């Protein structure tokens, strides 16, 4: 079981959290093409290795934050605020 350090509540077990997927994506403008919207909605890098992703402490403070995590080892490299740039 992973232990994730919520930026508000400190380290807690993984089953208190929900992963919200890839972070730092920019929503395209309304005038942009179907391709741009398709890319934004569905296409992902899905890296084998370091991944920047959003997590929510659902069964805790309910707040969203960012996690830099390795998708192979599950090692958490950094935890940072939802609006902060990737470290």
């Amino acid at each position, binding site marked *: 079981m992973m232990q994730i350090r919520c930026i508000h509540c400190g380290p807690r077990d993984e089953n208190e959290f929900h*992963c919200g997927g890839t972070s730092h994506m920019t929503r395209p403008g309304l005038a942009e093409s179907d391709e741009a919207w*398709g*890319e934004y909605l569905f*296409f992902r890098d899905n890296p*084998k290795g370091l991944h920047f992703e959003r997590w929510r402490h659902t069964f805790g403070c309910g707040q969203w934050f960012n996690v830099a995590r390795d998708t192979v080892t599950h090692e958490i490299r950094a935890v940072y605020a939802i609006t902060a740039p990737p470290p």
Partner: protein
Amino acid sequence: MQNSYSAWSLLKGALTGQRHWTAAWRDATPKASYEVIIVGGGGHGLATAYYLAKNHGITSVAVIERGWIGGGNTGRNTTIVRSNYLYPESARLYDFSLKLYEGLSRELNFNIMLSQRALVLVAHSRHDLDAMARWANAMRMNGIEAELLSRSEVGELAPALDLSPQARLPILGGFTQRRGGTARHDAVAWGYARAASALGVDIIQNCEVVEFIKEGGSVVGVNTNRGSIRAGRVGIAAAGHSSVLAKLAGFRLPVTSYALQAMVSEPIKPVLDTVILSPGTGAYVSQSDKGEIVMGAMLDLFPSYAQRGSFAVKQAIVGATLELFPSFSRLQLMRQWAGIVDVVHDSSPIIGPTPIANLFINCGWGTGGFKAIPVGGWTLAHVLATGNSHSLAEPFQLQRFITGRLIDEAAASGIAH
């Protein structure tokens, strides 16, 4: 020339101490070039090679596999086959697959131990009952047999279930697809490998793609840890590692890789002769021919390439199984594993061309790739051989994520994720 497997050959072999056995398939070394290279030696890749040779007469084919054949998700599933999908496109695709499975032992001269022991879905609420009536009716509209079951009928099919009214997950009824069941997973991989090898296909293990060779924007081969191999066309059938290969080739997929875990108990005497699926909890339970109780359920819902799975989800799977079958509570777990599955937003596969010329892909089966091995191979072979998508695969193109014409089985058929 291969031995044909039969009772007669076994009897004949008995006279000579069974020393007539030869390797089931050739462990090949890579040649300089092939007409078609398939990246990924799991069920889908091997089936693709077999159908390229069998249906299209293309025998200059190499299946290249990073590890050993059938060592990825083909060896890491719960061996369930079924075709209880909601939408016509999916129903056609998966039922074609089940029909191929029904004839596969004979076709491949390899006993895949298909056991059509019935898939039984159980309803725990009025909502579940309504949803299942709709689901079973949709299947029948698509020409696939399905039967609604009352609570006592579920009990007749699976008496080990907790059918008492005070059960935490009360069973109010359900439905069954009697043609659903299980098949032996490594027999499927080895059966296809043996049959493909006999038709001249090279199966190359321990061969990892490190680069796609491109000329003028088209893929013309691959560089591997065992040297360069040229090819007219290349197909990818790499499940959870599809995005890694797509990145090497220079495009992206609408895929996220998750760990899907399963486990088996110690073997016990026969107690369960159907496959039980509880969509409400995501749990599916069956008993293997060896007697182990095979359990699986929901994904570990965060991106992962680690073939294990977390303890939190393991607890949830075991918990759900025990609510259904309280009598299993004293069993010990014997093995647990996870496969890395390629989940797309509509839980439907992608079979067809990629944005790179001469490069084709079969991916996106997510949590349900095993049952689709025959049709995945059949349709990828078709597009590799002809350049055109098979009619069954036409709705399942990458382009649907741009046009928005999704086939949203994730929500529709109540599958567990």
